[in-house]
């Protein structure tokens, strides 16, 4: 019952001009700390969130919408905070790995349940799992710090203690490397046999079954990837933020990820990052300059995109720049 307008899952590469443009985009991002240092933190948040949005995008490729993926974002962030609290002097890469593995493991456990479901039920069940975790975070306050969350002290980097500026700069470039690396991986994964089998869930599970493939197993592969991506995003966000709160898992946060995925261009990895950047800018500046109506502005923005540019921002972007059939 569910299907999403995605850019064709075909695997053709984008025209060279467009690729150059993307490379220019990454270079521009890398130059932010020098050109506009005040935007660095904001872009860092957007990149972290963008990774989680890619996680949601993976599922959109199979026509499924999760309204609870903030769960994995939050699990990873909390694991990072717990590890930092219990192992003093923990290294950044230690919590990055721990958080991502934790999110993937949670993805496996939740995934084993939810891969049986499709459409609205898939979305709702994910929502329920995330809300259970949210309630637990709020409830077991002596462990989780309740609504105030847990402070995540600055980890060392390969044994070095960095000051805030140095650490943030390191984190920023780590985020760019992860975004480029994981974005590239996800695009390759989409084009690979496993990724293609996963995406066929959107159009025909019967045929998938008759190819000798378990749709649930195929679904689980994508679900794991999406959970792990959210996990990486969560740990990046938590270290950039320095604190984790139950708000990381709140349903509006999950809806926001779907919001950004569709805003950027549902199904597009690059669109997810583009969407996250634009969303974060609009949100921050709208709340700064139009404190009373920023939600309204965002809502109206989303409506305009859905009604008039269903391909999302990436759709507009590629229509303007691409000559030929540019995809994902």
């Amino acid at each position, binding site marked *: 019952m569910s299907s999403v307008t*995605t850019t*064709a*899952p*075909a*695997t053709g590469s984008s025209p060279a001009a467009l690729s150059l443009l993307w490379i220019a985009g990454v270079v521009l991002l890398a130059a932010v700390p020098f050109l506009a240092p005040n935007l660095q933190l904001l872009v860092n948040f957007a990149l972290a969130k963008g990774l989680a949005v890619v996680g949601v995008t993976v599922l959109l490729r199979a026509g499924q919408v999760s309204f609870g993926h903030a769960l994995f974002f939050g699990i990873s962030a909390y694991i990072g905070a717990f590890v930092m609290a219990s192992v003093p002097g923990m290294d950044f890469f230690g919590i990055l790995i721990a958080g991502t593995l934790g999110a993937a493991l949670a993805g496996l456990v939740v995934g084993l349940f939810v891969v049986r479901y499709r459409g609205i039920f898939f979305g709702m069940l994910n929502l329920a799992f995330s809300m259970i975790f949210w309630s637990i975070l709020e409830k077991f306050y002596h462990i989780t710090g309740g609504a105030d969350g847990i402070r995540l002290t600055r980890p060392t980097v390969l044994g070095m203690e960095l000051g805030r500026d140095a650490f943030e700069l390191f984190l920023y470039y780590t985020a760019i490397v992860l975004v480029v690396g994981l974005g590239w*991986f996800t695009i*390759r*994964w989409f*084009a*690979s*046999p*496993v*990724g*293609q*089998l996963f995406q*066929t869930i*959107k*159009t*025909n599970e*019967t*045929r*998938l*079954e*008759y*190819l*000798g*493939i*378990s749709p649930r197993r195929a679904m689980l592969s994508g679900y794991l990837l999406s959970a792990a991506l959210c996990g990486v995003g969560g740990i990046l966000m938590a270290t950039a933020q320095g604190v984790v709160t139950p708000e990381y898992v709140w349903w509006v946060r999950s809806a926001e990820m779907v919001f950004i995925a569709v805003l950027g261009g549902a199904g597009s990895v690059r669109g997810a990052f583009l969407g996250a950047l634009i969303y974060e800018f609009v949100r921050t500046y709208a709340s700064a300059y139009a404190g009373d109506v920023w939600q309204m502005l965002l809502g109206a923005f989303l409506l305009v995109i859905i009604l008039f540019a269903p391909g999302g921002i990436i759709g507009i972007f590629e229509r303007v720049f691409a000559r030929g059939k540019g995809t994902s």
Partner: protein
Amino acid sequence: MTEPLLETRDLVIRFGGVTAADHVSLKIEAGRNLAIIGPNGAGKTTFLNICSGWIKPSAGSVHFEGEDITRLPPRKIVTRGVARAFQIPQLFTEHTALENLLIAASARDGLRNPLRSMHGIDARDEMMHLLDMVNCADVADRVVVELSEGERKLIDIAVALALKPRLLLMDEPTSGVASSQKDEIMEILIKALSEANVTSVFVEHDMSIVQTYADEVAVWNAGNVQLRGTPSEVLEHPDVIRDVIGEEIA
């Protein structure tokens, strides 16, 4: 006598009050294309669904090359060598024809490398050849939703063949196709089957097709095989003319 490719023993299935399969025992020999004919609602598709694992029978068993496959899910039966084509083509509609076949080949070969594009897999030439065999090479790069029903039916069969099955179950391969094209499709199909050394069981309503392309015919009526034999034997039988062909004409 050699072991049959597929054998059903005493299959029974009931839906509510209707008995769709009533103690069906049927043997299918390798190398002989079997057509199943019979009036609507006689249980022909249900029979294919049971053999391919989509529906579990109330009683009885299905054996493929001697192995009991009754309780296996479709995907396990597929990996044993039984492929299925459908009355309504079951394709990945947002993919191209070639991609549909490449996905099938990936599934068959169990490809796991997430960094290698599906388009670069070794089976690509094989799949192009398969498309060529079903006369669809010219639409290889077109997205399935844009194709005609006839093309989709052929690609549906090609996808099944891509799995290198030993038995292919087909549900009305020529339905939904203009009558002028039916023979063309069947020609292509039978040639492809023999080239790939695949035995087929196909449900068919068009008696001239059955006459021309089947090696054997089973007449299905009221949930069981009423009569079985060569096309000429069966189609001249008075009961068949009255019960089955008469209805087809009407």
